[in-house]
Each structure stands twice: as structure tokens, then as C-alpha cells.
């Protein structure tokens, strides 16, 4: 979906309103006091700005992240999240390094280490993605990794990228996820995974393959209405001829003899392109031109708004973010700061629905799940569970990435799988080798005395607020009790997993 970009920016003074003092301070960041998230029953969608921030910018709030945000204040918290290197994430880094070490290999190392054409390494990439989303402290970074992985989708797993997809994840997506989009697009245009996925490694001056040249325009940059025609598209393919892979090593190779020579023109990009040896620079200049095109800015701003604000992006915010994107040389962090600081963002609570993968990860996070003590069995289980839910990470079969609007996620099977996953995880049925705290630890050490207080405390812990009175009544009816009934072994014992699952089945958890 969207594109990301960023650039060193800061050339334009004043644009970084986010953190600034005085009149420019955006509303959502203006106060550091977190409202009491759990105090009173109220409207269905909590408008607490801290929770809103955590629901949208992370894979789901936890008591720890709520406390951290409250302690730091929203401005400082965002500063850290936008500079992920400032966050100590060694536990998660170590987890990946020890459980999925092959995902850290170079392409030649991977080709030496795994069976040719095996999908094993790609499955590991998918599992590592779930693990990072769940356990990394660099949550906004992981959200953006998900965003860009879909924008520049290389379906994982798929044929042709068995030896390179893990490397693409690292040096294209992760390396630039909070950097400049221009750099990311160049990295993708020179990575064997993208070039193989979209057949550019087969594209030569004598037999151009249009797949990559078309998607570069339609999906990766200016968009289908971005101002190009079929002739431009064909020229796009010609410009990129020669960008391919080395058959023997699997690494990127520019082949001058396969490059089309002669004048080329796509929209406002023109080059005489006289030689094969100069074609590499022409191709890179073309990709950089596309990254900086106003239509690309518009498209990326639209997709970011769809991700963070609403399924129907507010046009004025889109326009503003597109301007910020261009003013900062395709740098993404300034765009995110403006977005998060906007009134549209602040007022968008309840306008996004968690997709299945986000629901799964939010569930794991709020229940306090931890990785397997050793090995990867439980994390493999999560990978297959995400498939049952209908959203295995990185595996959307088309080059355009998973959709991010609620209308695409309406399947009855998906809803049922989501509800069943809540119970399976709450009850610790499967994946059983993951470590889960005892459910009673979700509640205060001194247990509430009545059913009503128990439900309130559990809701506060799981969805960070009290339920509406009508909803609280529905839960008590489910438990065959009234609010004043004393707590007994039903609610503290056998029915507790079901109660936890029921609360996670509600819109309080389903909304992003």
C-alpha cells in the first residue's frame, strides 16, 4: 500500500511542527498527561489520545507500553519511536539471531546453507516477522516495515526468491523503513528479489518483459492515475532493461549488453541513453525521478492516511502530507510527524479495524505471551494460525500487497477464526509451547470481590477501559451472575479463559 520515503530533510525550516514548542504544537502531542484510560464507562470507542496512539502506531497496547507512554509523554515517546536505534531492543534482536539465524545471511551464504529452491528460509522470514511485531520494542518501526513490505510487495513465500527474500526484508525494507523513500525504491530496483519477482531479470532490449516496468509506475510510485500512458509504461520497461541477477551467485547484476539504448521518455523524465554502460545510471536516475514525483507523493500520503487515519483519507491531510514529503526529499519521518500531529488523526478513533494479523499480534501482546523457551515450535504455530485467520504476513499473492480497508476483511470464516484464535490463546491450547502467564495474573493480586468489579478489572486490563453498561450487563449475563454476586471459582477458574476470549471478541479489541 503505501510508499514510504524520507530524506534527510530538514531543508525546509519550520516543517517539523511536531515537536516544536508554541503555537505549532499539534493537538495530540500537546499534553503529556495521559487520561485515565480505565476510569468510567462511556462511548464505545475510547478517545483517550494515549491509547489511540498505541492502537494506531503499534501492534497493540500493553500495560507496559501504556505506562511507558504515560511516563515519557507522547512527544518524547514519538521521538524515540521515530529513531528506533535509540530504543534498546536487544531481547528481540537476540531472539531473531538465535532462533532464525539464517534470516541474517547474505544471498551467497543462504545459497550455500539451504537446499536449492527450498521454501524453508522464506517460512523463517514470515515467522521472524510475527516475532518482531509481537516482541520488538521498536513498534512504530515494525508497523512501518509491514506497511512498506506491502507497498513493495514481494510475495513471501514464492518461487524465484527462495534465496533472496530474507535479504530483501533486511536491506530494502528494514534498512529504509524510516528513512527516505527514494533510497528504498532504488534499493528495491537493484535487489534480486524484486527483479526476479517481477521478471525484470528476464527483460532484455530484444525481449523486454514489461512486468516490473509497469508495476514500478502503477504500484511502487505514481499510481495508475499518476499521469503516464501505455507508451510511458513501455519506455519504463526499456529503461530498466539490464537490471537483473547473476545466475551463478543470485546477486544483483547490471548487464550493459541487455540494456536498451536510445532516447527514452517517461512523463517528464528524458535521457538520450546512448550507451549500455551508461544505462545503470539512467535507470537509477529514473527511479529517483519517480520517487520524487508529485503523484508519488500523493499516493504515499494517501496510503499512509489509509493506514493510520481512515479508510477514506481526508483530502486536505493527504495534500498537506504530500507537500511535506516533497519538501523533505521523500523523507518519511517528517510525514509521519505531521500525520500524527493532525486533527484528522486525533479525531479518527474507531475509524480503523484491525486486520487479522494485527488482531493476532495485539492478542499475543495483551495476554503477555512470550516466545518458546527454546526452538521455534510455537512461533511456527503462530505462522500457521495467521494463515487460518487469512493473513499470513508477507504472503499476499499479488504485487499490490494486503489491502488495508475494512471492506476487504468481511469474511465469516475470518471472523470465526479470529474468535477461535482468542480462545485458543487465552486457554493456552495452541500453540502450546509459547510461554503464557497464568490468566489470573491479568487481574490485581488482591482479586476483586464481586463479579461486576472482576469484569471491570479484566476489561481494563485487556481493552484498557470499562465496558459500556449495556456491554457489561451482557458479559454478566454470559456468566449467569449479577454485578454484586461474590467472585467464585467459576470466574476465577474454568470459565476464565472463555471470559477473556469473549472480551477479546468485542469491538473494543477489534478496532485499531
Amino acid at each position, binding site marked *: 500500500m503505501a510508499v514510504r520515503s524520507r530524506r534527510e530533510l530538514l531543508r525546509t525550516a519550520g516543517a517539523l511542527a511536531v515537536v516544536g514548542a508554541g503555537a505549532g504544537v499539534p493537538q495530540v502531542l500537546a499534553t503529556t498527561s495521559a487520561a485515565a484510560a480505565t476510569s468510567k464507562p462511556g462511548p464505545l470507542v475510547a478517545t483517550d489520545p494515549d491509547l489511540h496512539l498505541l492502537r494506531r502506531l503499534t501492534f497493540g497496547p500493553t500495560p507496559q507500553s501504556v505506562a511507558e507512554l504515560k511516563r515519557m509523554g507522547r512527544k518524547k515517546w514519538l521521538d524515540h519511536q521515530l529513531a528506533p536505534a535509540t530504543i534498546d531492543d536487544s531481547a528481540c534482536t537476540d531472539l531473531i539471531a538465535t532462533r532464525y539465524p539464517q534470516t541474517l545471511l547474505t544471498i551467497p551464504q543462504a545459497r550455500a546453507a539451504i537446499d536449492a529452491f527450498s521454501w524453508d528460509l522464506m517460512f523463517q522470514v514470515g515467522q521472524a516477522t510475527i516475532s518482531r511485531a509481537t516482541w520488538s520494542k521498536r513498534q512504530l518501526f515494525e508497523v512501518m516495515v509491514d506497511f512498506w513490505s506491502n507497498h513493495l510487495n514481494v510475495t513471501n513465500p514464492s*518461487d524465484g526468491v527462495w534465496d533472496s527474500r530474507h535479504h530483501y526484508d533486511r536491506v530494502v525494507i528494514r534498512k529504509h523503513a524510516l528513512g527516505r523513500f527514494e533510497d528504498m525504491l532504488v534499493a528495491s530496483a537493484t535487489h534480486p528479489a524484486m527483479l526476479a519477482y517481477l521478471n525484470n531479470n528476464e527483460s532484455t532490449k530484444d525481449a523486454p518483459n514489461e512486468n516490473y516496468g509497469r508495476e514500478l509506475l502503477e504500484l511502487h510510485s505514481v499510481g495508475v492515475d499518476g499521469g503516464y500512458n501505455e507508451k510511458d509504461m513501455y519506455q519504463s520497461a526499456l529503461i530498466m532493461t539490464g537490471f537483473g541477477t547473476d545466475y551463478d551467485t543470485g546477486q544483483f547484476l547490471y548487464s550493459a549488453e541487455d540494456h536498451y539504448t536510445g532516447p527514452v521518455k517517461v512523463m517528464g523524465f528524458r535521457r538520450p541513453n546512448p550507451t549500455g554502460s551508461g544505462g545503470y545510471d539512467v535507470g537509477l536516475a529514473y527511479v529517483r525521478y519517480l520517487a520524487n514525483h508529485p503523484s508519488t507523493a500523493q499516493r504515499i500520503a494517501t496510503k499512509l492516511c489509509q493506514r493510520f487515519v481512515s479508510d477514506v483519507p481526508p483530502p486536505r491531510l493527504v495534500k498537506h502530507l504530500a507537500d511535506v514529503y516533497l519538501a523533505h526529499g521523500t523523507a518519511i519521518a517528517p510525514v509521519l510527524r505531521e500525520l500524527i500531529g493532525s486533527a484528522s488523526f486525533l479525531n479518527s478513533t474507531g475509524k480503523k479495524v484491525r486486520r487479522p494479523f494485527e488482531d493476532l499480534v495485539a492478542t499475543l501482546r495483551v495476554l503477555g505471551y512470550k516466545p518458546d523457551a527454546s526452538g521455534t515450535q510455537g512461533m*511456527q504455530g503462530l*505462522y500457521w494460525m495467521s494463515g487460518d485467520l487469512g493473513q499470513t504476513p508477507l*504472503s499476499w499473492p499479488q504485487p499490490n500487497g494486503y489491502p488495508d480497508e475494512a*471492506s476487504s476483511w468481511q*469474511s465469516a470464516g475470518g471472523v*470465526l477464526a479470529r474468535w477461535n484464535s482468542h480462545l485458543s490463546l487465552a486457554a493456552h491450547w495452541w*500453540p502450546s509451547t509459547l510461554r503464557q502467564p497464568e490468566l489470573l495474573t491479568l487481574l490485581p493480586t488482591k482479586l476483586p470481590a464481586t463479579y461486576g468489579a472482576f469484569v471491570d478489572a479484566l476489561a481494563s486490563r485487556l481493552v484498557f477501559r470499562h465496558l459500556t453498561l449495556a456491554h457489561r450487563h451482557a458479559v454478566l*449475563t454470559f456468566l449467569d451472575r449479577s454485578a454484586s454476586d461474590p467472585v467464585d471459582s467459576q470466574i476465577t477458574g474454568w470459565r476464565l479463559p472463555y471470559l477473556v476470549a469473549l472480551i477479546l*471478541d468485542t469491538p473494543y479489541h477489534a478496532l485499531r
Partner: protein
Amino acid sequence: MTTPTDLRPGTKECGCPDDTGGMSRRAFLAGATATGALAGLTSVGLSTRLAFASAPYTGDVLVVLSLRGGMDGLNVVVPHGDNDYLTQRPTIGIPTNALLNLDGMFGLHPAMVKLMPWWNDGRLGFVHAVGQDSPSRSHFDAMAEMERAAPGSGLRTGWLDRTLGLRAPGTAFQGCQIGSGMPADMFTGPSPELAMWSVDDFQLSGADNSAERARWSAALSALHDGAPHSLTAPVTTTMDALATTDALKTAGYVPDITDPNLAYPDTDLGKALTDVARLIKAGPQVGLQVAAVDYGDWDMHADMGLGNQPDTGWLPDHLAEFSGALAAFATDLGSKLADVTVITLTEFGRRVEENGSNGVDHGHGQAVLLLGGGVHGGHVHGVWPTLAPGALDDGDLKATTDYRALLAEILEKRCGASGVSQVFPGLGTERLGVVAQRT
């Protein structure tokens, strides 16, 4: 290649290990036996939408069987009248006298004998030399393109999604993937579909008796009161679907098959087709319009079976299960077969020449099976390009029929579709005449 048998990740055939430390994923999803009835699941706080309100769809139920892995059509619908067949396949080629004669030119693999009654009465037919417009010999690419079914266009949706998108909204069961928790890529796109391992598995975990179902239903309905439409709509559909499967489970199901020799095989395919028949026979209350079922493991690069021993080996065993399940399905449906069209699709056929491992590598042209009351059966349709060396497409059977023309004809004549050009952009109007116009 060490790719898994079923190349879509996350399905049970992907080769992934189940979690052996506890309840397996399948066991978890299976849950306990359900015995509830419809009444308990009537929504309380949700917008009312009758579970059984059927859309005004009156066409055939379309059953799409995906034979993933690349079925070797040349050893299934065998061109024994083509002299080059046994020349190219001296070891694995099946001699004429072992085949079930179809029309002098083609013979059916003997392991498919159970299907011959439907051939003989004209409800089973085949099309040979079928293929895709832009062939790929990669499983993944060929499957993705086959299910997108829009070569040369920028469409990102699957052809079944576009097909359903042209119809009035139906029940939750309008488009179903049976036998898998994930819908096939044919369904990719905005039209809702339902993927289920089985009717019996489709249930809310924890709600395993009628009292518990009523408890959960009331609570979930009330707890979605006041939620945005984007959440209540799928929840309503889910509740309806659960009510439907509960009613089906209460009613129970016994296949209408008296001859034990024709019983469904006790395999995933047999179970999936049992459920498809069950849903079809439930009629408009369920509202099934399209069912998709996977039957993989056709990637027979080695040891597929020897031509002079055509009743043992990988391919014969696979075909026996396949044809046994289809024969049971057709028997079970009885007169309902008049309103059903079954089509098989595989991402590519296989190389004409056998390889050195008693197998066949990835090829191009494939054979398609058609079964149903409206099928012009008893006939092998298509234009045979011959297996002469000069007639091959890079060593493969040439494709003379675009598979989308078959699908388009079925949608037009059997399923009441009028906008096939929106389903298959750029497809010409030529049709082979494989089915009769539904009246």
C-alpha cells in the same frame, strides 16, 4: 524442487509440522460435536438479516476442483490414437489395450473406471489441449495467473471474486472454499467468501452444545451493539453461517449412496466433496453458488507408475481416489446433478516426453474434466494439436483452448452471467460448446 505439495502456505498440506506439544490446530478447530439448533443463534443486537434469505440466483452450483501440482493430462485422457504418444513415453505410456476407450482417439486411464457410467450417459466430458495465454512453468506463477485469470490486465482480483461481484449479495455460503482454512486466490478481492475445513468444523470454539451456543450468541450479539458497520456486518454474516451449520449438524447427513463400492473415499477429498453435496442438497437455505476444493499432489517428477502396470503407482492411486470421490459425489447428488457443473483446473500439464525418473516434468497443455447435468458429455472436446515433434510448444502439448473460454461458457450458459467480459477481460467470444444452455 523441494516445494511443498500444496503450494499455498498455511494449509494442511503445506508440509508444516503440527504442534505436537498439545492440541493440534486441526483438532482445535474441529472442537466437539455440535448438536444445536437454529433458534439459539438469532441475533439480539445485530441488524437482522435472515440466515436463509437467499439471493435470486437460479443458476448451476459451480464446483471448481483445483488439481494443484500440475496434473499430467496426457496419462489421464490418453491420446493413444496419436502415434507419437508411446514413442515419447516408452516407459510410462499406457498401452491402448489397458485404456478405457472413449472415442478411438482417446482412452481414459483405467484407474478412473468408476466414472465411466457418467461418460456413457453423457454427463461426463473432457477437453484436451487446454492452457493459459501466458504460460509459466513455475507452480506459483502459473497458479497465481490461472486464478487471477486476467493476463495482460492490471486486475488484482481472482476470477471467482469477480464472478460473485456481478451477482446480488447472497448468503455467507455464496462462495465457499471447502477443505481448507484459507480461500484460494481465485477468491481474492472484495466479494466475501467463506473458507472452512468442513461443515462440522465450522463452529465457535467453546460453544459446543446448544446451551453454550445460545450463551455465546447472545453475548456476542449484544457486545457488538453500537459498533461500526464494518464490524457488525461480518459478525452478522458469521452468526448466520454458524446458525446454518448448526442446523445442518442437527439434521445430520447421510450420503444418498446405496452401493458401498461407490461410497466416498475416507480422504480429505472425499470429505470435502461430501460437504459440497451436503450444502448443495440443503438448497437455497444455504445458498451455495460456487464451491472450490483443492486436490493436490500431482507434481509427479518421478515414479508416477509404469505403463505396463497401470493399476499400481502414484498416478493410478491418485486417480482412483479422485475418480472414486467424484463418482460418489455424482451418485450422492442424484437428480441434483442437473443443477451442478464440476470443472477441474490444474496450473499446467506436463512435458510430453518422459524424463529419466519414470516421471514427467512441468509442461503446458492440460486436460480438463467436466461433470454435470448440463455438460455435453461423452465427448473429448477441443482441437488436438498432435504430439508430432513439430507441433509441440517447446516440448510440451500446445494449448489450443484458453481455459477461460471454458469457464466463460459455463458462466454464460449455466450460471446466468451476462458480464463475462468483466470477469475475463480481453477474452474473445469463441466457445467450444461444452455445456448446454440452462433452461
